[in-house]
């Protein structure tokens, strides 16, 4: 397999924030992630695309340290990924997990977990609510929120910790255009402040907007990786070509 570590030309100078080396994950007798090598450089935004079941969510989980690889590993600033490293990361799950509390209760919980001192929490929560446009719903039970509202709350909770790296798993899948736009602006803002984002998306337009580099996954492997525009404009691999044309890519299954 090609070594893809160096696709990130622009960021070559900066030392890598996170690297995966031969990352492999297996379950149910299948290699669901299969020898993935990636490098995340500070401030460089990555978009991940790929068909359903390609392993995008698993890859995010592995990079975030939520799953233990069967083989290979994840390096955080050159060292083993541990809980302390995870404190500098945050993730928005594809299917938001919200506590059985109010919207505000969820946010306060996240702030507290992230070590925000008690006296700072109300202001921070207020601010996050406003940014997620949930102020009016602060006292509503979080699990009764609409799909889009839940997704916005999950994003607000992730951002509350002011992470260095933000993993986003289809963060705008249930959002209306205005919210999608707002989220993309939040990402741009975060990027401007130096946050490194990794966004899984099925929307090529979004990939261009929120990614500098694109990783295209297919059946647990990196089919193609490189600067987002050049890849999408001139896909070289079969899977990505099929994808951009909206075709089904069925190599062996």
């Amino acid at each position, binding site marked *: 397999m090609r070594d893809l570590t160096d696709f990130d030309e622009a960021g070559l100078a900066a030392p890598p924030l996170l690297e995966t080396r031969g990352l492999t994950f297996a379950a149910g007798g299948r290699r669901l992630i299969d020898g993935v090598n990636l490098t995340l450089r500070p401030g460089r935004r990555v978009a991940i695309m790929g068909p359903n079941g390609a392993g995008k969510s698993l890859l995010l989980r592995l990079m975030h340290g939520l799953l233990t690889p069967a083989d290979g590993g994840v390096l955080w600033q050159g060292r083993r990924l541990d809980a302390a490293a995870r404190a500098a990361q945050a993730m928005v799950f594809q299917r938001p997990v919200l506590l059985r509390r109010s919207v505000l209760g969820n946010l306060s919980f996240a702030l507290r*977990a*992230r070590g925000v001192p008690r006296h700072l929490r109300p202001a921070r929560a207020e601010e996050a609510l406003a940014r997620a446009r949930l102020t009016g719903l602060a006292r509503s039970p979080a699990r009764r929120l609409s799909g889009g509202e839940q997704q916005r709350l999950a994003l607000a*909770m992730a951002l509350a910790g002011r992470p260095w790296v933000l993993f986003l798993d289809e963060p705008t899948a249930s959002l209306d255009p205005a919210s999608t736009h707002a989220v993309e602006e939040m990402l741009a803002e975060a990027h401007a402040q130096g946050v490194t984002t990794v966004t899984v998306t099925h929307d090529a337009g979004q990939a261009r907007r929120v990614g500098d580099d694109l990783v295209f996954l297919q059946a647990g492997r990196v089919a193609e990786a490189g600067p987002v525009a050049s890849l999408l404009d001139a896909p070289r691999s079969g899977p990505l070509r099929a994808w951009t044309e909206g075709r089904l890519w069925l190599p062996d299954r």
Partner: protein
Amino acid sequence: MPGLMEAFWDALRLIALGDADLWEIIGLSLRVTMTAVGLSCLIGLPLGAVVGAFRFPGRTALSLILNALMGLPPVVVGLGVYLMLSASGPLGVLQLLYTPTAMILAQMILVTPIVAALTRQVVEDLNEEYAEQFASLGVRRMERVAALIWDARYSLLTVALAGFGRAVAEVGAVLIVGGNIDHVTRVMTTTIALETSRGNLHLALALGAVLLVIALLVNAAVMAVRHTAQKVAYA
């Protein structure tokens, strides 16, 4: 069974008339049981939650042991506490044998595994949903436990009520360590046992009905509190 209804009305009449002895017995029953269940929850909820939420060496063994301890025979617990507290036992100097404190201790030993084992299951189910979010947020261990217990609180109420049921109905242990001493350690269940051995079966049964009514009232009170809390809810 005509004698039965009669005995039941007699028992009710005693209560209504404020029979001092009966009220004393009911009061002690509730005091001992409530204290024991409260303390059991204080230990059993976090213990069960820890076993349910974390993976650590010996976890399977521990949850197996908790499950098995739900089958701890009251008489055995009573004996164990008796041997500890008896004058010649290691804790004899405390002079706790045949006091309500000893009864509370025995019931705690009985009820804590029940609360812990059932809590483990409830928390394990909830943690399956929460675990990744907690790990992602970097929630500290003790906060995780607290959050799981808090979010599962309505289910855990039923667990606590199961513990209450076991404690309030229990006779074997409190008889041994309390001694069923009149005006000192006599509770509802030991009174029922006494009336049974006296052959006053109907009176015993009537007292049992009274005990059940008490249990019903306690459960209703707990449920009412729960409903109110659920309405106010979502802090």
